């Protein structure tokens, strides 16, 4: 930036036509990017403001206590059992359970896939797997949900006790959805490793497996964890696919094969049927706020992981 700004001082015939043209180009380009950035900032700030103003109204205007909201286990916003109750603990539990389980299923698979692509068969392995994974990332979540409902749920119903619906089915569907996220982050990290590291390991007489397990993996672990956290964040925020297979009962389930809910599934389920401004609707906004808060935490974790390990 400094160099460009000081440019005109060095140019001797101060206002040549070419200089003017470049200056105008520079200005146009700069204003254009400024407009884009400003728009982005305005959008982000207004979304946060909007969600926060609606979500916080539950506590400040409608007088629901934060403790009851976060730790209450009864969700009865329509007041079917007397006083309306707005406990969202079952949903928070459901969200964490599904996304953790999904990450647990998907991580080993994606780490192996990225190792295969970058270390074991870098040639055709990458050529074959890369498009497959990109395709996986491009499939819309409704499709995943629909497949989940027609394939995963009946399978679960036949193999395990219960109706096939539940956290297990949700986690399984989500794990396929977050596979590409983790795989692409992990393979990027693996392929950006300095060659010297691997070569010196081989030079010391280590086998390929020893190199992978003792040199490569420990070095890229933080990056892989970043991928896992990003994958979890996606799983946490996914609504449609989960909602179709999880059953949506507002309770903490006794097993993985019993109907449960996540924060997102309840929001999509109830959204259209609530009147805006009602406590029920505001409670949904508070859940949206909680979701956003969780996303911030996920981003924070990613940032910390990135900062701690730079190769």
């Amino acid at each position: 930036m400094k160099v460009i700004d000081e440019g005109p001082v060095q140019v001797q015939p101060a206002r040549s036509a070419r200089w003017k043209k470049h200056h105008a180009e520079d200005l146009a380009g700069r204003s254009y990017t400024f407009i884009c950035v400003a728009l982005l900032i305005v959008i982000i700030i207004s979304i946060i403001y909007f969600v926060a103003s609606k979500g916080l109204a539950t506590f400040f205007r409608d007088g629901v206590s934060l403790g009851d909201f976060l730790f209450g286990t009864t969700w009865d916003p329509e007041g079917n059992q007397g006083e309306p109750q707005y406990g969202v603990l079952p949903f928070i539990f459901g969200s964490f359970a599904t996304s953790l389980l999904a990450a647990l299923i998907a991580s080993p698979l994606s780490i192996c896939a990225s190792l295969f692509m970058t270390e074991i068969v870098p040639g055709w392995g990458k050529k074959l797997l890369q498009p497959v994974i990109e395709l996986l990332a491009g499939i819309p979540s409704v499709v995943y949900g629909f497949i989940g409902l027609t394939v995963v749920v009946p399978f679960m119903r036949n193999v395990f006790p219960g109706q096939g619906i539940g956290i297990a089915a949700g986690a399984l569907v989500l794990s396929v959805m977050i596979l590409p996220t983790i795989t692409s982050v992990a393979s990027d990290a693996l392929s950006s490793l300095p060659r010297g590291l691997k070569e010196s390991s081989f030079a010391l007489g280590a086998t390929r497996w020893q190199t992978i397990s003792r040199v490569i993996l420990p070095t890229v672990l933080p990056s892989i964890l970043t991928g896992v956290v990003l994958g979890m964040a996606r799983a946490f925020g996914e609504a449609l696919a989960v909602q179709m297979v999880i059953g949506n009962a507002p309770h903490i389930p006794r097993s993985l094969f019993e109907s449960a809910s996540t924060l997102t599934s309840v929001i999509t389920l109830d959204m259209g049927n609530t009147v805006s401004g009602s406590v029920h609707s505001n409670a949904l906004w508070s859940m949206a706020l909680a979701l956003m808060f969780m996303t911030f935490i996920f981003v924070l974790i990613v940032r910390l992981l990135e900062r701690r390990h730079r190769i």
Partner: protein
Amino acid sequence: MKLKKPLLMICTLALVVMLAACGSKNTQEDSSASGTANNDKSSELSGSVLAVGSTALQPLVEQTAQKFMAESQYSKIQVQVQGGGSGTGLTQVSGGQADIGNSDVFAEEKLKDEAKELVDHQVAVVAMAAVTNPDAGVDNLTKQQLVDIFTGKVTNWKEVGGKDEAIVIVNRPSSSGTRKTFEKYALGASTEDLKGSIQEESSGTVKKIVSESPGSIGYLALSYLDDKVKVVKYDGVEATVENVTSGKYPVWAYEHMYTKGEPKPAVKAFLDYIASDAVQNGDVVELGYIPVSKMEVKRDVDGNVSK
């Protein structure tokens, strides 16, 4: 200085963008309002109609909107139909964002004071029936048996005369219009979401799950019924159109199209079109609803039925 300049720029830009957004909205409203105000004569009606709300009513409104716009005298009217749920429909019509709010329930059940401003146009009747998986082996359920099932007192089909199979409840969300109707007129009370019960967002999914999971019970509008699910008699009465119109079968509700105050001409033309005999006896029946005119009984907000 260098730092302040871009900051200033961002602020001005933000302001410009906001103002632009507000401005465009105003002009849009103006144009649609003036479009209808200038053309009071029915031959020259024009303008736009936005109907938002209930997904249960949406197929009917969409189909009639298509036909309505194809009619030569209404060709200048643009009808847009959106889903979003009864709550959204009522909120938007009372807030003035939509011209028509479609709802499965009376506005008084969702809104408070705002409901007084809304004018009700009942365009169809929807009846609902309890359905089970064909495996359950039950043909008839009394009101008390249904209540026991949906409140969790009865958990096995053999207790109500069926097979030895655990009962799985497939509900709609507690805020859904279909569920409200079923609870109000079939069970007589609202129920709690039981542990292990399933909640699905749409009737299509409810049907899919009930038809596949052994021992499951749910409820669907008549238009969704077919051989894949077993339709259960209610207190010995079959869920047929005749039984609904004669008042023998009580589990039904009006489909409402609300306007705020008296509708503007273009909106009124559309509502009249839906209420016309051609649509009532054609599209309404074809899509599985029951025409309001056929009903031999009437029902008010509080659920009182009169001949």
